[in-house]
């Protein structure tokens, strides 16, 4: 458990509505360094919206975000990255016509100077370092030079994962449904990766529908219902029935 002194991230009273829909309606929680926190809840419970406000993709209507104890205002994904928050989205946010190396380095492309003057993209360096990063994830791609639209779901996932390993600054990695589009074996790899990130002291905030996955990796489970926190369950106390009851509400 994290208390206020050690929390890497703490949010208080987060609120966001779209038109009349209160997508997130007063959410508080915190994450400690190296902690894996899962967010579960029914479709439309507000999981993605919470995560996007932390990641700077949505501006919040109300509430406060504390990063390492200081109040912060992530206004853009860039702001969040500067803090050390990396996000992997449900749709993976890849550029389909760009190759995996290009995607991994999107926005951070290395440039070399031809004849010491003309700046050109250093594609060789991008491919070399991409191969290294993919090795850490232990997933093999058929080629680093085909558009990712030609890759399988798992291979795209690997690309997205390698993408945030690139930034050594990452202290918190947010994953929205990382296992949703994968085969069983590739799902296992993502769970292994989460474990690996935790070992390296990186915190993970993971959204998942799969309670089995959640129970196997999360230190704590936050249940959202109708834009509010229905319950926070530490791993020790977590079992399927408790969580399902919190998700659907009523008798809990």
């Amino acid at each position, binding site marked *: 458990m994290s208390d206020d002194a050690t929390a890497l991230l703490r949010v208080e009273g987060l609120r966001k509505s779209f038109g009349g829909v209160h997508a997130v309606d007063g959410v508080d929680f915190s994450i400690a360094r190296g902690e894996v926190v899962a967010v579960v809840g029914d479709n439309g419970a507000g999981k993605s919206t919470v995560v996007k406000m932390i990641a700077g993709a949505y501006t919040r209507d109300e509430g406060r975000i504390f990063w390492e104890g200081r109040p912060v205002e992530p206004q853009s994904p860039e702001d969040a990255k500067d803090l050390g928050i990396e996000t992997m989205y449900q749709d993976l946010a890849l550029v389909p016509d760009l190759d995996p190396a290009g995607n991994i380095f999107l926005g951070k492309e290395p*440039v070399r100077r031809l004849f010491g003057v003309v700046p050109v993209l250093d594609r060789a360096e991008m491919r070399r370092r991409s191969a290294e990063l993919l090795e850490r994830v232990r997933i093999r791609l058929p080629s680093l030079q085909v558009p990712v639209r030609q890759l399988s779901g798992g291979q795209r996932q690997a690309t997205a994962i390698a993408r945030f390993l690139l930034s050594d600054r990452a202290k918190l990695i947010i994953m929205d449904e990382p296992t949703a589009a994968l085969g069983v074996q590739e799902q296992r790899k993502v769970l292994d990766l989460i474990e690996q990130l935790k070992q390296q002291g990186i915190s993970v905030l993971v959204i998942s529908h799969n309670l089995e996955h959640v129970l196997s990796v999360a230190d704590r489970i936050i249940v959202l219902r109708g834009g509010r926190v229905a319950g926070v369950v530490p791993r020790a106390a977590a079992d399927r029935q408790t969580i399902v009851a919190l998700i659907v509400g009523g008798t809990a």
Partner: protein
Amino acid sequence: MRAGETLPAPGRATARTWSIGDINPLLFIIIGLYIVLALASDRFLAVTNQMNITRQVSVYLIIALGQTFVISSRGIDLSVGSTLGLCAAVVATQISDGLNVWLAIGLGIALGSLIGVGNGLIITKLQISPLIATLGTLVALRGATHLYYTHLYAHEVVSRLPRDIVYLGQGFVGPVPVPAIIAAAMCVLAWYLFHYTRFGSYTTSIGSNEAACALAGVHVDRQKILIYAFQGACCGLAAAILVGRLNGASPDVGTGYELHIIAAVVLGGTALFGGIGTMWGTVLGILTIGVIENGMVLIGADFHLQRVLIGILLIVAVAYQGWRRRRQGTAERT
């Protein structure tokens, strides 16, 4: 893939096998046209005629290079003909009024860039679709060009300009027309920007998935504005060359160019809905149209026949590209 499995060189790229389908099919069409036209007219292959083709296509090509950036980014610029018209008006009249030729050319390029920035701002800040935004500027700039002549210059046409500007449009270095040399230099610049810089890479990436680019920290709006500014600068430069070639200008200069240019870019293989672009294809697209136009005149065919041919070719080429991409999208998926 199992967790403990030893992986042979993870992530290592395996070379993609090369196939004849990777050659731009326009190349075969151009070769075919050359064979047919060489047989049909003994003047077609003459050096003077070949150089004439390069001179004729130069203005179109310079603008089409910019349009390749625009279309690759999932945009479109319909205002290129009108931008050309207004830039030509300003360049021609200022030179005619005694402004230094080189300053006038610089002025034309600056004006073109400024118009491009305007297009970019309308598209990004007012969030108007590129089609509508540049349809608006197409109409407005043509009107502005007429107003410029009647109210600021008081003549409807400009003619008999100084030697330097005429040289830019009509001169030769050895057998090679000056406009062709400028167009070639612009091809190198555009090819470099498109394939070797962040600017080029972000252009196609925005066309492919704009949201992903924004999330990755790419300044999407700034990039788009720069793309339209580059397109405008191309129009400004093309205007100066055209003024030299015509040894003057009139309010209707450049009318209808947009269709010719967009057709050439798409014919070359750049995807109209962005994400995929090719400078080489654009060069081939412009050449194909240029060769058809030149050849039809040489063999004395009805002028309107070339338009029928170009229209059919455009449809066939796009159908082929779509078929090939759909096939790749599934066949190479694992």
